[in-house]
């Protein structure tokens, strides 16, 4: 691939746009200039660190270092999933559910890609495993947090309806069914939208990156299609997993709705 190498001066020219934003904010008294400048600096520092860490991990090619980076990413994604919903489960169940769902959905789809479509040598090659995990976790995070929020918020809102059905002898699974389907659907909609918009309304980020890096468009498209399928699968697993685990945490052996387990 014949990527055009970017030098420091090229980046500085683009950084003028950040200053333009800040100037606009000052001129129009939007009050966001500090925020934009700080975010820009943060972004540069974060990405620089990631670049350097990945360079050394890629060069080392060690399974241990790869695993450490992947686990760190899963931990960060799980934390985000757990803290996004307004409602929290007691005894850190938010975190347990998020960690289980993010890890399972992430590993299942990335391992599938690494062993079938991509097949690097060795299979855990960090150059493939880490970026794949990164993009999959982005979707997993979105899907799982939407589904989890859907259930936790939903049981509070729908409590009367669910308990009215329970009180008439309806089994818990049936009484909670509409809420579970609703929350799961919420988790899966973003990736469905993403797939239908891909290429027409937006050029997906990965594909843009590969085109800029000099890859043939058709090859880039194939990668993008593969990734979309992975994201769709991961979103589905994450939505269903988060919804079902959250519902399980909110019920007990007597098929009661345990809203008292919310904080």
């Amino acid at each position, binding site marked *: 691939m014949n990527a055009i190498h970017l030098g420091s001066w090229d980046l500085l020219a683009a950084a003028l746009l950040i200053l333009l934003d800040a100037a606009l904010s000052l001129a129009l008294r939007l009050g966001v200039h500090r925020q934009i400048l700080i975010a820009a600096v943060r972004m540069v520092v974060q990405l620089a660190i990631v670049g350097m860490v990945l360079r050394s991990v890629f060069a080392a090619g060690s399974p241990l270092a790869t695993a450490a980076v992947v686990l760190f990413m899963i931990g960060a994604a799980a934390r985000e999933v757990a803290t996004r919903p307004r409602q929290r489960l007691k005894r850190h169940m938010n975190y347990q559910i998020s960690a289980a769902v993010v890890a399972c959905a992430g590993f299942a789809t990335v391992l599938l890609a690494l062993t079938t479509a991509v097949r690097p040598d060795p299979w855990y090659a960090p150059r493939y495993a880490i970026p794949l995990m990164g993009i999959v976790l982005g979707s997993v995070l979105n899907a799982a947090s939407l589904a989890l929020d859907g259930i936790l918020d939903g049981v509070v809102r729908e409590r*009367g*309806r*669910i*308990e*009215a*059905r*329970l*009180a*008439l*002898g*309806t*089994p*818990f699974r049936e009484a909670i069914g*509409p809420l579970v389907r609703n929350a799961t659907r919420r988790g899966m909609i973003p990736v469905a939208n993403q797939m239908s918009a891909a290429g027409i309304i937006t050029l997906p980020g990965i594909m843009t990156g590969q085109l800029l890096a000099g890859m043939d468009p058709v090859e880039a498209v194939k990668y993008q299609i593969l990734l979309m399928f992975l994201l769709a699968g991961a979103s589905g697993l994450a939505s269903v997993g988060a919804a079902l685990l959250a519902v399980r945490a909110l019920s*007990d052996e*007597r*098929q*009661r*709705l*345990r809203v*008292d387990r919310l904080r």
Partner: protein
Amino acid sequence: MLSTSAALLSARGLRSPFGGPFDFDVQAGECVAIQGPSGAGKSVLLRMLADLDPHEGEASLEGRSNKAMPAPAWRSQVVYQAAEPAWWEATAAEHFEDAQRAFVERTMSALGLAAALLDSEIDRLSTGERQRLALVRSLAAQPRVLLLDEPTAALDPEAVARAEALLRSCLAQGMAILIVTHSAEQAGRLAQRIFHLDRGRLTTI
């Protein structure tokens, strides 16, 4: 008093952090009114009897412990009707099976409700209409024991009389009813016994 063979519903050491312990028996065909100030734990008691809230102790139906049967089987025989009954479909009709239709229409007319209300949107019904439909819904489940939380609070005197007549005919058929009511008159008209609840403790009057 502690012989469980004769009792339809019995409570033994029923308690939760919000009330109890409760020990009592209710016979088939008997109505017990529960009175007490707001927050005394009246709903807590009914919800424990329906096994909707975690609790210690035991409730049993004809001597059979609720722990000995699946929770849905227990709740379909010991039906709890909340003070503000919720609806999960758009119209009342969707809450009933086709096989229940004849019973539902008969019961609605006994309560002075037109059958056409079944197909109206729940949100358009008055509070009183919804409350009476909730009673129809609870009775359509054909419970052995009915736990009612202020079932006539939103009704005018005529509708109250109709509801009480309906409940009396259920009692005559052997149903047991526990009814939470603020009205001492209603308690006197319907109930053989009145339980007074205060700060989670029970005293029989």
